[in-house]
């Protein structure tokens, strides 16, 4: 296998924002244990700004690192800004991922999307 970048290894070994939020405003739960990746992303939103984000991930090094990076990237962003955080953005922030691991960054994007969608639907309700 190709090597992980130093950034990936940093986020993998010292993942930021692990855990859960009490009374989150949005929760994204994506992936499937069948495929070896499950990601849960929770966000706290104040005045349309993501003020906190936490994750829990079952998955490989890349899955954990992308989760960690995604939380770092969203905290402080508005919901609109957060929606622009694509898999590419996450992967680039980690100085790239080995080709066979690119799907892991999709998972982070999907988790974020799901959490925002959940937040929006709660707003409407």
């Amino acid at each position: 296998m190709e090597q992980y970048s130093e950034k990936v290894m940093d986020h993998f070994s010292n993942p930021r924002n692990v855990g859960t939020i009490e009374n989150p405003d949005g929760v994204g739960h994506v992936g499937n244990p069948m495929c070896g990746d499950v990601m849960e992303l929770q966000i706290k939103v104040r005045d349309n700004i993501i003020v906190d984000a936490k994750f829990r991930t079952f998955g490989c090094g890349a899955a954990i690192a992308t989760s960690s990076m995604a939380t770092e990237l969203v905290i402080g962003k508005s919901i609109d800004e957060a929606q622009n955080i694509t898999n590419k953005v996450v992967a680039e922030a980690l100085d790239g991922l080995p080709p066979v691991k690119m799907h892991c960054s999709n998972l982070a994007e999907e988790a974020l999307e799901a959490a925002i969608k959940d937040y929006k639907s709660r707003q409407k309700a």
Partner: protein
Amino acid sequence: MKSIYLDHAATCPTDPKVVEAMLPYFSDHYGNPSSIYSLSRTTRNAIENARTILASAIGADPKEIVFTSGGSESDNFAIKGIAHALKDKGNHIITSQIEHHAVLYTCKFLEKNGYDVTYVPVDEHGTIKLDELEKAIRPDTILITVMHANNEIGTIQPIRQIGEIAKKHGIKFHTDAVQTFGHIPVNANDLNVDLLSISAHKFYGPKGVGALYIRKGTKITPQSHGGDQERRRRASTENVPGIVGLGKAVEIATESMADEADRQTKLRNDFIKAILEKIPDSRLNGHPVDRLPNNINISFEGIEGESILLNLDMYGIAASTGSACSSSSLEPSHVLLSIGLTHELAHGSVRFSLGKHTTREELDRVVDILPGIIQKLRAMSPLYNK
């Protein structure tokens, strides 16, 4: 930090005595073994010497040994070689669900090319179901191929009995002994096999060289056509240093095998006991007793194998996993699924494979470190909430 290498089933360091034996055959004794001048006598003799060593180690005649480039070539050669040579007799092959990819994907390839393959299931310990194997036999069955011991979970198969069944029905029988040769007794006659694959780097020989035992009288089509080498069964200028290294590795392995197997079995059992005790929601994969002396395979609930490996690596500990992590497919090990593990547990498996330099101290260190890693990852996992 001294590294702790526990991935001997993947590959072993070449024994320095093996390297020493190889060295003269690079730049000094370099003659092409097929040439007639006296310069080539040394290389020719060296090859035949290695052949004799290997043959006597497995109870064969030197003429029954063909040197190859490794276990994968031996497996491909055996299976495609028999399938092609006997295609007028039939097109049905029987194998197990837990073969190494070198066997499995060769069978899949043959399936796409006019052959019919039955994949016999195994029980929860990974032992092939003998009754189902025998039931699978048809009049057009030309080959049975079942590995001697599994590379992931270490389960040793009842090869001798399978061989008897094959013999009774007049079917050729191949076994992939890549994981067993040099570690537990491997004798072609005791095992009732017609073909048997080995690979040098799995028993402290060099990478890139292996052998296929082919019982006298077995019709086989070569995998590599060309020169007259290896009695016309494998064309190519012989890898003389590699073959010499293989011979030396066989010599060293057979000397110490019995003692080493005992030693590793004890270490293995103590390690398994300690881990299962210290780490909740963990389970041993493979057969509790009929397993390779050096194989330990454990699944940890709620977490994924690659992340365990990467954490171990930070402590200098090298192991492997049945997770799909490093492959381009998302499927975890077919072996772990075949013994009934869920996808999640299959993804959460780690294999530790011991070697002749593995010490109790090293394993104790892993027993100290591993629980913390598992706990840390489980704390991060949405699938583990205990």
